């Protein structure tokens, strides 16, 4: 059982590292920022996802395992949004897309900032 779990871990982590390697090669070799982002997000989402799944049998259930999954979810959220922001700047579309709803947001910000202070 333990040997099976170890085999599972080795295979999935290696697969995940393969995606990281591919993402790295893409980052270095692709010609433009958008393609490079495309390569990077694969490493984030698939590579780290496979590494996390591979490590699941090695850690204590439930809390350590859930922490690993939570880490992956946070990296996916952060990575994809950062990719979105870089892409928006690259396309010069950041202002164009934000102009539409910036007024509504500015109004909502009027009432006190204190409630958000830590």
């Amino acid at each position: 059982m333990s040997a099976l779990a170890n085999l599972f871990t080795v295979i999935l982590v290696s697969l995940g590292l393969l995606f990281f390697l591919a993402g790295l090669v893409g980052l270095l070799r692709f010609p433009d920022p958008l393609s490079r982002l495309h390569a990077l997000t694969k490493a984030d989402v698939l590579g780290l996802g496979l590494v996390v799944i591979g490590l699941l049998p090695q850690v204590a259930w439930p809390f350590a395992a859930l922490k690993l999954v939570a880490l992956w979810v946070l990296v996916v959220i952060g990575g994809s949004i950062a990719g979105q922001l870089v892409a928006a700047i690259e396309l010069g579309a950041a202002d164009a897309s934000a102009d539409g709803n910036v007024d509504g947001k500015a109004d909502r910000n009027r009432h006190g900032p204190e409630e958000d202070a830590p």
Partner: protein
Amino acid sequence: MSVGIGLLTDVLLSGTVLMLGLWVILTADRLRAAIGFLIYGLLVALVWVRLGAPDVALTEAAIGGGMIGLLVLGASTRLPPEPPRSPGAPARPRRWILHVIAAALSATVALGLALVVLGLPEPAPSLAAAVAAELPATALENPVTGVLMAFRAVDTLFETVVLVLALIAFWSLIPDAGWSRRPDWLPLPHPPPALVLLARILLPIGVLVALHLFWIGASLPGGKFQAGALLAALWALVMVAGLARPIAATERLVRVLAVLGPLVFFVIGLGGLWLAGDFLAYPEGLEKPLIIIIEVVLMLSVAVMLGLILAGLPSADTAVRAPKARPGTEGQP
């Protein structure tokens, strides 16, 4: 086998840290250097993990890398663009002298540190056994927290006082005309919707993680400084995304919160003089609740002070900020 892999990791890690450090110093572009410094902080945190010091690693990642990295990043984007090379020709020789002096001083420090560390007797002198023996008296399980809050509490107290002084020094840079105005470095004029979404998602998760870091500090790596730095970073993110407006230096609430931590720590320390016979000594049986009270207020103070420093300064020119003139007065408690 595992020793070999560990050695390989260490060699790769220290090689990367050295090369990245060199690159950050040598790179001509400020923004690239600042981003390199952020990554450098994360790698140094990994070095601390390899050295078996997760408490230091967390602090390095949160403060050494994250907080200072953000300040350097902010400074690099606010400095005027560097003049092109050719007109600066007469000024260059003096810069080279400065570079040589800085390099010589850094090399001296590194060499001195290396001599001291390599000259230590084997095994190195350590108070770890004494700390481990006395730790039960503090009702804590994490020896690092025990040292910070009990055995060397006076150091921790003055570290937080230094932070107050840093905030005062920072505020002294506010131009006279902008004193009651909100800082305007962070908020983006048109925050991209994706960034607003990120701030909305990360705020509750981040607060939860910060409270977790704070609470496990009693028994595991973590504690008030790391949690405070995380809260400050979240606050900065929320300000960048325009979900909360930066707070002016004249607000009474943030001033009170900034000094509350060191003040409560100091008062409890003075109480120890009377109740337990020594400055910063905790009365028998009350160690844990007193330490928790101190850590809660210190965490709030650290978060508020770091957040206020991250928020930057208000600008002096009233022409640009005319519609927002004197917004600091409306929210006065």
